[in-house]
């Protein structure tokens, strides 16, 4: 019953987020600040993980190909498919649920605990629009992060294959190009866009409606990570079923 209540409350929250807009001059500054916090601030960890996981995917693929009949370009092919279809959009989004999601929940939750949200409401500000809308706009740039993750993942795979002696550069690049379906990139960006909305709104929901003190802020961050991840995985399944089958 509590799950149904939360789902209903989440959609009511979304309705409030898009009503009674904050003054544009204020909103603009908030959006730039959120881009800095949520997008620019996440680039380091995303780049690091993408590069090395791309390398690991290439190495693992190469090490598991024992049959001499399997062409060497398969390493590049498998790296490209893994990175574009799943690793960059889904795996990075789960990481972002931990990094960005817990940041959003704890910052809004702290504002709730210290009555800053009450202060906004008393002043006549639509606190949900003020706090959540700029995050949604900022995270609409999230597909750019995923583009970089895709590039670095493949670059990491390429370098690991060459310098590890698992594949030649020509074979790897042939694998990248073979049977390339452009719609796979479109599919990846469609789900990335949906994930960006989930990343902005579910952690905001858990922060905004939390009750209690500092301990509860920590608990809300954990709960928000769990549910953001669950929703990302479910959406991933549904979108894959809808678009690729």
């Amino acid at each position, binding site marked *: 019953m509590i799950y149904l209540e939360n789902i209903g409350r989440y959609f009511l929250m979304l309705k409030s987020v898009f009503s009674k807009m904050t*003054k544009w001059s204020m909103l603009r500054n908030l959006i730039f600040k959120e881009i800095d916090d949520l997008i620019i601030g996440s680039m380091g960890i995303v780049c690091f993980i993408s590069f090395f996981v791309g390398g690991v995917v290439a190495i693992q693929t190469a090490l598991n190909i024992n049959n001499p009949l399997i062409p060497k370009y398969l390493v590049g092919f498998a790296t490209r498919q893994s990175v574009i279809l799943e690793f960059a959009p889904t795996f990075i989004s789960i990481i972002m649920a931990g990094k960005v999601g817990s940041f959003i929940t704890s910052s809004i939750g702290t504002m709730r605990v*210290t*009555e*800053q949200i009450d202060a906004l*409401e*008393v002043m*006549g500000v639509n606190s949900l629009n003020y706090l959540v809308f700029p995050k949604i706009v900022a995270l609409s740039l999230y597909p750019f992060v995923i583009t970089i993750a895709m590039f670095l993942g493949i670059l990491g795979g390429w370098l690991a294959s060459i310098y590890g002696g698992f594949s030649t550069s020509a074979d790897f690049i042939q694998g990248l190009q073979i049977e390339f379906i452009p719609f796979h990139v479109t599919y990846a960006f469609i789900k990335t866009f949906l994930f960006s909305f989930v990343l902005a709104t579910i952690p905001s929901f858990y922060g905004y409606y939390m009750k209690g003190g500092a301990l509860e802020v920590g608990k809300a961050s954990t709960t928000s990570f769990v549910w953001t991840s669950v929703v990302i995985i479910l959406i991933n399944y549904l979108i894959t079923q809808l678009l690729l089958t």
Partner: protein
Amino acid sequence: MIEVKNIKKSFDGVEILKGISTTFEKGKTNLIIGQSGSGKTVFLKSLLGLFTPEEGAIIFDGRDYNSLSTKEKRELRTEIGMVFQGSALFDSMTVSENVMFPLRMFANQPLSEMQDRVDFVLKRVDLIDAHHKFPAETSGGMQKRVAIARAIVMNPKYLFCDEPNSGLDPKTAIVIDNLIQEITDEYNITTVVNTHDMNSVMEIGEKIVFLKNGVKAWEGTNKEIFKTDNKAVTDFVYSSDLFKKVREVYLKELEEES
């Protein structure tokens, strides 16, 4: 003036406010007092519209809050200034930005005029060199003064303060009390202060509403509170020996005068 008519509020089936009616007068410092758990904070938050009462009416100069449209409620809220118990300053903004926040949100003025207004109210609360400090870099007393400055920057008609003295030393607490009193007189606004600081009760309580277990157990002025024989009030206000003696001295003086 704020009229409160028979408001009731429950949480999870437990009735916290059991039908409170009173009037908070314009140009006066109205105090809500009572023990912890008596319903003071719920009452104050109901007045502010942060909680919706199940029954009753809250009327701001003839405007029944619960019958107003969302737009009208938001407009009314721009006439309200609030000082929260923990000050509720925005951590990521400087003192100056905190005070300017309501102006930037609702006033259509050039930045220079807004800055002048901010300088004026900060000077009014005796904060001159704190413009560029962040709340975390200021003391509790300074934070309260910034909160008061932010509450009055829009020239409110109604000022609400939730435990404005909590966590402050006695000297700073008196400064804050006097500031609230002066601002109430100066701007001729309706001020409602939620407190359990007996010093505030004696100093600035032009009207006092005493709550006990979610009902109004007594109301009167800071002069009348000395003379009342209401047991609930005397047990609460004169629980310390010091205040018992203060009361005895005051009553003795009154007797001698008469």
